[in-house]
C-alpha cells in the first residue's frame, strides 16, 4: 500500500487544476473594492475664496442649474444620434433624431452632441452603476453586502437625495434594485421581457410630460428600453428600429418644449450595440454611446469647430454634480467636462471657474485614490506615487496662485494663461489616474484566460489517461513525483527571482501557473521516456500494441455512455437558459444515466440467469433452457432504480428560485421556522425536522449494526452509540430555541441568548471530538478472543512472521478463521472447538469509518442550514445509499468471474456520483448566484457577528458546498461498496453448497479484506477512482470556463455565466480537497488495520 505517494500525486493534480483556475480567474474576474465613505457638503476640498455664496443650497461649487432632466435611451449608439444631411439613403438607424441636429445647428451655444464612451462590461446594470457612481463597475464589487444588487457606494442619486433634491424616476425597473427606496417618486416598468418593445416606453411617455409640468421634481430620470429591446429582437438594421428612434425623436421634441430656462437636458445612451443588436463586450460599436446636452440658457462659450471630443461615461458624474451644486460622489474617478464650465459669467472669468472645477475634481480623485490604496493593494505603487507627485505640484501652484490673487487682485498679468496651464496639468493628472484604475479593474486578459483553459484541459487529459492505463503504470508516480516537485519549484524560484529582479514586484498567480505547466510537461516527457525505454527492453512492442488496440476499442465502448451524458452536461454550460434551468437539467441527466446503466446490463444479458445462453452461437453441449428467467438481483435492482427515480423527483421539492424563472416559488422548507406564524404548522414542521434527524441517526446506526460494526467498545463505537443521540438532542434544542423566540419569554431572554450560542458550539465541539476519535482510532472491530493456549489461530502458517510476504499470507487466513467462528456463533451451534478469534465487522471496517465521518459531517452541515433542510439531508443520505447499492449490484452483475474488476470503478458510477453532488447543491436550497447565498450560516453559533472574515467565510462556504463536501468525502465508498455486497451472495452460495463441506471455507466472504490482500492494487484503485472523479469534475469546470471565455460579451455574462463560473470553480476546489480528505481517511483506516493485525499476531501465543 502506497499511501503518501498516492496522496501527493493527487495533491499535485489538484494543484495543477488550482493553478489553471487561478490564472483564468485573474484574467476574467475583474475585482475592485468598494469604499463605504461618502462625500459630504462639509468636506472643504477647496477653501471657498468668495465670501458668502449667494446660493446657500450649493456645495463645493455654485450650482449652475436648478433642475436637470436625464433621459437614458438604452443602447443609443453614437451613430443613431448623429445626423448627416448628405446621407440621402439612410439606414433604418441613421438620421432619425433630427431634433438633435436642428438644435445643434440652430443653437450651437446651447446644445452639443458627444460620443459617450462606456467602459466594458457594457450591460445595462453595470452601466447604470458607472453613470451614477463615477467608477468602473466590475463583476465583483467587494462590499459589505452581497445579498442585494443595491449600490452600496457613494453615488449621484444618494448625493442628490442627501442634499434635498427631489429625484423622480420612470422606466427600467433595474434602477429599483440598484437604488431601493431612494426616489421621491417612481414609475417602474418591467425590463425582463426583451421581446416587449413598447411597455416601458409607453409607460414613460404617459407620465413624462405631466410630471415635467407638475414641477414636483428637481431631477427627473427617464430610462427608455425600446431601442435596446428592438436591437435584441430585430437588430439595428430593421424598420422597427427606425420607428423606435422616430418615437424617441418626437419625445425629445415635446420634452424640450416643456423645459424651463433653469433646466438642463441630458440625453444619454448607456451603451451601444453591435450590428446584431447585442452588447456586453468591448467592441467599438458597443462602447460608443451618445451624449447630448442642451439647455435653454447658453451653455458653451465657443462654437464647436471640429468633431466633438470623446467623453468617457464616468465624466458625467462630476459634471452633473458640480453643475447642480452637490458634492461629487466619493469614489468618482471621472473628470469634469471642460466645455460646460466655460460659460461667460458676468463677474468671473471662464478660466477661473474651469480651474476651480478641475481643482475640486482633482482633490476628490486624489482623496479617493488615497483611501483606496489604503483599503486595497491592487493599484501599482509606483503609479500611485507618480500620480501623487503630479497632484501635489498642481495643487501647490494653484494655492500659490490663489493666495497671490487674494493679496493683490488684478496684479497678475497672464492670469488667463496661468489658469489654463493649471487646468491642463490637472486634466493630465485626472486622465492618468483614470487610466491606472482602468488598467487594473476593467480589462479582460484573453491570454491569461486561454492559458488557464489550456492548463485545466491538459490536467483533465492527464487525469483521464492515468486513470485508464493499466495498473502496471502505477509505479510511475512514485519515482516521478520528486522530479515533478523539483521542476516545479525550480521554475517557480527562477520566475520569482526574475520578476523580482526586473520589476521588483511578483505575481503569485503567474508564477504558480508557469510552475504547473512546466511540471506537467516534465511529467509527460518522463512518462514518454520511461515508456519507450521499457518498450525497447521488453521487445514485445508489437504484441502489446495489438493487444492494447483491442483493449482500447473495448474501452471506448465502455466510455460512450457516460461520456455522452457528460458531454450533454457540458454543452448545457454554454446556454444561459440551460444554466438557469440547471436545477432540472442535472436530475434529468442523472435519471437518464441510471436508467441507461440498467438498460445496458439488460442488453448484455447480465440480468438473466446464466443458464440461458444469450451469447451468439447456441451452446450445443448442454441445452439452454428456452425460458429466460431473471436473476433475483435484477428485481432488486429494478426496485432500487425506481426508488432512486423517486428520490431524484422528490429532491426538486427543496429547490430555491432564481428570478429569471417567472412564476417560480421557492421551497417552503427553506424558510426558517421562526418566520412561521401559525403555531400548529410550526410545531408540525419542527416535529418533522426532528423526526428526519432521528431517521438519519437510525439509518446510520442500523447500517453499522448490519455489518457488525456496532459491537466493539472502542471509543469510536461508543461515540456513535452515545455521541450521535447527544448531537441530535443539541441540534433539536437549537432549532427549538431559534424558532421559538417569542415575546412572552422575555424573562428567559438572557438564557435564550446564551443557548443560541451554546447549542451550536456544543454540536461543533461534539462533531470535532467525533472526527478526532475517528482519526485517532478508526477501528470498529469487535474482537472476541476465545482461543485456547494450545491452539494457533493460523493453521497454515508455521514460523515467525519476519517478512511482509508472510504477513500477507497470514492475514486472509486469520480473517477466514474469524469469519468462520462468527458464522458458527451466529448459527448458534455449540461445536465451537475450532473457533479462536472472532472479529465482528472487520469486513466493513473501511466503509464504517467513512460512514461515521460522513454522518458527523452531515450533522455539522445540517446545523448550518435552515431547519427544513434536514429533510433534504435525509434524502441525500437515502439517495446516496441507493446509488451505492445500484452501483454495487451493477458491478457485481457485470464483473467477470474473477474479482479483479471490482477494483475498477466504472465511469457510469463516478459520473452519476458527481451529478448527484450537483443535484444536491440545488436540492439543499442553493443557486449559483450571489444573492442566493445563505448568509445566515455565518451567524450560527455567533449571534453577534465575527471579528475576522475567515470563520464566517468558512461557515458560509460549508453551507453552500455542503453536498460537494459530502459526496467528495464519500467518493471512496464507490470503490468499497461492491466488496460489501459480497457477503450476502456468497452466503447464499454457501447454503447451496452446504453438502460439500470442504469448499465452505473458501467461499466465506472476505469483503473489504480482499482489498488488503493486494495492497498495491488497492492503492492504485484508490488513485484511479480519485482521478476519475477529478476528471468528471474537471471536465465540467472546463466547460464552464470555456463558456465564460467564449461568451464574455454575452448579455447574461455578469448575471449567469460569471457567477456560475465562480461557483463551479469554488465547488471544484472544495470537492477536490474533500476528496483528498476522504482518500486520506481510507489510508488512515488502512494504517490502523495494519497495526491491529500486527498486534494480533504478536499477541498470539507460540
Amino acid at each position, binding site marked *: 500500500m502506497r499511501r503518501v505517494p498516492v496522496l501527493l500525486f493527487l495533491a499535485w493534480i489538484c494543484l495543477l487544476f488550482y493553478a489553471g483556475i487561478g490564472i483564468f480567474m485573474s484574467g476574467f474576474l475583474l475585482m475592485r473594492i468598494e469604499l463605504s465613505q461618502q462625500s459630504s457638503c462639509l468636506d472643504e476640498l477647496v477653501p471657498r475664496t468668495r465670501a458668502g455664496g449667494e446660493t446657500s443650497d450649493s456645495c463645493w461649487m455654485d450650482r449652475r442649474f436648478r433642475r436637470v432632466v436625464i433621459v437614458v435611451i438604452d443602447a443609443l449608439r453614437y451613430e443613431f444620434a448623429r445626423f448627416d444631411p448628405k446621407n440621402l439613403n439612410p439606414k433604418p438607424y441613421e438620421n432619425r433624431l433630427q431634433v438633435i441636429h436642428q438644435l445643434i445647428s440652430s443653437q450651437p451655444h446651447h446644445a452639443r452632441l458627444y460620443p459617450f464612451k462606456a467602459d466594458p462590461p457594457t450591460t445595462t446594470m453595470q452601466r447604470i452603476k458607472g453613470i451614477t457612481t463615477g467608477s468602473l463597475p466590475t463583476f465583483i464589487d467587494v462590499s459589505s453586502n452581497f445579498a442585494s444588487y443595491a449600490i452600496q457606494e457613494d453615488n449621484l442619486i444618494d448625493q442628490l437625495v442627501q442634499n434635498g433634491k427631489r429625484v423622480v424616476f420612470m422606466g427600467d425597473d433595474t434602477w429599483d434594485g440598484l437604488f431601493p427606496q431612494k426616489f421621491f417618486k417612481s414609475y417602474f416598468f418591467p425590463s425582463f421581457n426583451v421581446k416587449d418593445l413598447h411597455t416601458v416606453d409607453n409607460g414613460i411617455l404617459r407620465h413624462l410630460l405631466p410630471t415635467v409640468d407638475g414641477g414636483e421634481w428637481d431631477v427627473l430620470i427617464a430610462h427608455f428600453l425600446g431601442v435596446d429591446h428592438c436591437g435584441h429582437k430585430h437588430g439595428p438594421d430593421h424598420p422597427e428600429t427606425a420607428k423606435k428612434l422616430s418615437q424617441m425623436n418626437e419625445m425629445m421634441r415635446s420634452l424640450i418644449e416643456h423645459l424651463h430656462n433653469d433646466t438642463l437636458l441630458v440625453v444619454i445612451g448607456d451603451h451601444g450595440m453591435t450590428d446584431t443588436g447585442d452588447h456586453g463586450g468591448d467592441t467599438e460599436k458597443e462602447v460608443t454611446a451618445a451624449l447630448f446636452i442642451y439647455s435653454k440658457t447658453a451653455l458653451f462659450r465657443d462654437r464647436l469647430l471640429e468633431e466633438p471630443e470623446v467623453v468617457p461615461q464616468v465624466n458625467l458624474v462630476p459634471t452633473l454634480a458640480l453643475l447642480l451644486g452637490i458634492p461629487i460622489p466619493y469614489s468618482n474617478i471621472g473628470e469634469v467636462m471642460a466645455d460646460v464650465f466655460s460659460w461667460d459669467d458676468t463677474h468671473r472669468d471662464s478660466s477661473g471657474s474651469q480651474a476651480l472645477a478641475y481643482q475640486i475634481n482633482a482633490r476628490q480623485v486624489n482623496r479617493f485614490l488615497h483611501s483606496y490604496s489604503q483599503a486595497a493593494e491592487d493599484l501599482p505603487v509606483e503609479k500611485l506615487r507618480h500620480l501623487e507627485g503630479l497632484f501635489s505640484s498642481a495643487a501647490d501652484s494653484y494655492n500659490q496662485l490663489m493666495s497671490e490673487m487674494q493679496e493683490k487682485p488684478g496684479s497678475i498679468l497672464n492670469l488667463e494663461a496661468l489658469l489654463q496651464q493649471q487646468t491642463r496639468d490637472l486634466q493630465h493628472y485626472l486622465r492618468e489616474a483614470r487610466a491606472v484604475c482602468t488598467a487594473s479593474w476593467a480589462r479582460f486578459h484573453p491570454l491569461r484566460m486561454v492559458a488557464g483553459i489550456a492548463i485545466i484541459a491538459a490536467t483533465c487529459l492527464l487525469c483521464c489517461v492515468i486513470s485508464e492505463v493499466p495498473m502496471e503504470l502505477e509505479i510511475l508516480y512514485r519515482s516521478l513525483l520528486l522530479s515533478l516537485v523539483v521542476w516545479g519549484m525550480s521554475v517557480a524560484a527562477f520566475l520569482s527571482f526574475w520578476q523580482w529582479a526586473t520589476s521588483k514586484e511578483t505575481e503569485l498567480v503567474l508564477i504558480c501557473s508557469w510552475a504547473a505547466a512546466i511540471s506537467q510537461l516534465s511529467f509527460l516527457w518522463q512518462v514518454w521516456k520511461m515508456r519507450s525505454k521499457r518498450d525497447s527492453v521488453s521487445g514485445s512492442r508489437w504484441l502489446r500494441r495489438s493487444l492494447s488496440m483491442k483493449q482500447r476499442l473495448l474501452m471506448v465502448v465502455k466510455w460512450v455512455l457516460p461520456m455522452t451524458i457528460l458531454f450533454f452536461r457540458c454543452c448545457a454550460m454554454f446556454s444561459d437558459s440551460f444554466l438557469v434551468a440547471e436545477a432540472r437539467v442535472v436530475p434529468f441527466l442523472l*435519471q437518464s444515466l441510471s436508467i441507461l446503466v440498467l438498460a445496458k446490463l439488460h442488453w*448484455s444479458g447480465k440480468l438473466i440467469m446464466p443458464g440461458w445462453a*444469450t451469447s*451468439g452461437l447456441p451452446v450445443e453441449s448442454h441445452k439452454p433452457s*428456452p425460458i429466460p428467467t431473471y436473476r433475483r438481483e435484477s428485481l432488486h435492482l429494478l426496485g432500487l432504480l425506481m426508488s432512486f*427515480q423517486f428520490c431524484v423527483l422528490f429532491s426538486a421539492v427543496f429547490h430555491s428560485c432564481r428570478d429569471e424563472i417567472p412564476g417560480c416559488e421557492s421551497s417552503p422548507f427553506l424558510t426558517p421556522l421562526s418566520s412561521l406564524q401559525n403555531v400548529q404548522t410550526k410545531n408540525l414542521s419542527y416535529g418533522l425536522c426532528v423526526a428526519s434527524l432521528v431517521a438519519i441517526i437510525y439509518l446510520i446506526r442500523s447500517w453499522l449494526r448490519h455489518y457488525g460494526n456496532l459491537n466493539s467498545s472502542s471509543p469510536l463505537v461508543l461515540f456513535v452509540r452515545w455521541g450521535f443521540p447527544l448531537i441530535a438532542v443539541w441540534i433539536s434544542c437549537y432549532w427549538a430555541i431559534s424558532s421559538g423566540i417569542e415575546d412572552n419569554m422575555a424573562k428567559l431572554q438572557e438564557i435564550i441568548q446564551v443557548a443560541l450560542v451554546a447549542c451550536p458550539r456544543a454540536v461543533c465541539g461534539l462533531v470535532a471530538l467525533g472526527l478526532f476519535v475517528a482519526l485517532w482510532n478508526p477501528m470498529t472491530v469487535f474482537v472476541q478472543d476465545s482461543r485456547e493456549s494450545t491452539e494457533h489461530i493460523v493453521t497454515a502458517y508455521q514460523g515467525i512472521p519476519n517478512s511482509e510476504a508472510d504477513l500477507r499470507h497470514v492475514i486472509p487466513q486469520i480473517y477466514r478463521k474469524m469469519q468462520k467462528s462468527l458464522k458458527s456463533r451466529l448459527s448458534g451451534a455449540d461445536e465451537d472447538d475450532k473457533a479462536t478469534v472472532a472479529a465482528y465487522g472487520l469486513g466493513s471496517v473501511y466503509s464504517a469509518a467513512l460512514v461515521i465521518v460522513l454522518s458527523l459531517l452531515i450533522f455539522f452541515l445540517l446545523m448550518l442550514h435552515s431547519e427544513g433542510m434536514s429533510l433534504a439531508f435525509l434524502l441525500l443520505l437515502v439517495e446516496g445509499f441507493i446509488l451505492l447499492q445500484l452501483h454495487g449490484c451493477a458491478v457485481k452483475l457485470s464483473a467477470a468471474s474473477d474479482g479483479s474488476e471490482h477494483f475498477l470503478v466504472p465511469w457510469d458510477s463516478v459520473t452519476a456520483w458527481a451529478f448527484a453532488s450537483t443535484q444536491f447543491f440545488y436540492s439543499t436550497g442553493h443557486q449559483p448566484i450571489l444573492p442566493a447565498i445563505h448568509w445566515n450560516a455565518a451567524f450560527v453559533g455567533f449571534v453577534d457577528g465575527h471579528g475576522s472574515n475567515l470563520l464566517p467565510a468558512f461557515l458560509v462556504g460549508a453551507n453552500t458546498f455542503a453536498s460537494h463536501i459530502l459526496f467528495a468525502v464519500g467518493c471512496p465508498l464507490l470503490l468499497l461498496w461492491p466488496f460489501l455486497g459480497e457477503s450476502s451472495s456468497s452466503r447464499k452460495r454457501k447454503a447451496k453448497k452446504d453438502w460439500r463441506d470442504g469448499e465452505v471455507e473458501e467461499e466465506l466472504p472476505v469483503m473489504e479484506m480482499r482489498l488488503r490482500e493486494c495492497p498495491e492494487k488497492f492503492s492504485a484503485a484508490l488513485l484511479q477512482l480519485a482521478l476519475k472523479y477529478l476528471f468528471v469534475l474537471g471536465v465540467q469546470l472546463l466547460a464552464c470556463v470555456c463558456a465564460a471565455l467564449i461568451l464574455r460579451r454575452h448579455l447574461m455574462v455578469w448575471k449567469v455565466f460569471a457567477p456560475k463560473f465562480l461557483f463551479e470553480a469554488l465547488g471544484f476546489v472544495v470537492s477536490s480537497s474533500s476528496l483528498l480528505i476522504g482518500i486520506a481517511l481510507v489510508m488512515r483506516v488502512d494504517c490502523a488495520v495494519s497495526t491491529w493485525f500486527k498486534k494480533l499476531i504478536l499477541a498470539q501465543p507460540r
Partner: protein
Amino acid sequence: MKTYPGELGDIQEKDIMKDIEIMSMASVHFFCVLSIILSAVVPAFLLEKFSVLGTHLTWLCICSVSVAAVNIIASVVLKPNPSPKRNSLSHKVTRFLKSCLYFMISCLLFHTIVVLYGAPLLESVLETFLFAALLSTFTTLRCLCLLGLNLQAWIRVFSKNGAMSIWDSSLQITTVCSIVGAWLGAFPIPLDWDRPWQVWPISCSFGATFGYVAGLITAPLWIYWNRKQLTYKSK
C-alpha cells in the same frame, strides 16, 4: 415468412429469402411513415382549425391510431410471429384482451416514467397520458404485433444477440430510436425562444415521432447493409 432460413445450406435461397423479407419489411415501414405524414396532412381538410401545433392533442390521437392501424393490419397480413397452436375464437379474444391490457399497462408505465423525469404531475395529465400512449404505440404495440404476448421473447429481443429475425432487428432499431428521440425532444424545453413547439409535450412527441420515422427508414437500410453479417439462429 413462416420458415426461417436456418441450416438449409443453400446460400442462394437464403439470400433470396432475406431480400424478400427485407422488401416486405421496407414496405410495411413505408406505410407506417406514410400514415404518420397523412395524419399530419389529411385532418386539415376534414377538421376545422386543425394544425399539428395548435390542436396537438387531436394530432396525437390521430397519429397513434393510424400508426396502430397500419401495424395491426401488417401483422395480420404478414404474420411475422409464429401463430400459437390453439387458434380458436375464444383464444383469439383472450389474446386480444390481453394485448389491450398490456398496452394499457405500458401506457401507464410510460406515464409514470415521464412524470418521474419531471413532467408536471397534476397539470396537463391528458397531454402526458396521450404522449405516453404515442410512445406505447411506437414501441409496445409493435412488440405486441411482432412478438405476441410472449414476454420471454420480449426480453430476448432486447438483449445482445437476441434478435432472431430481421423483424426483431427492426424492432430493436425503431424502439430505441423513438425513445431516444423522445428523450432528445425534451432538450429544447428550457430554452427561452418562446416558440409554440416548446410547450410540453409537443417537442417530446415530435422527437419521438421523428425518432420513430428515422428508425423506420434506417432499419431496412441497416439490415440490408449488414445482411451478410446477420446470421439469425433458428429456434
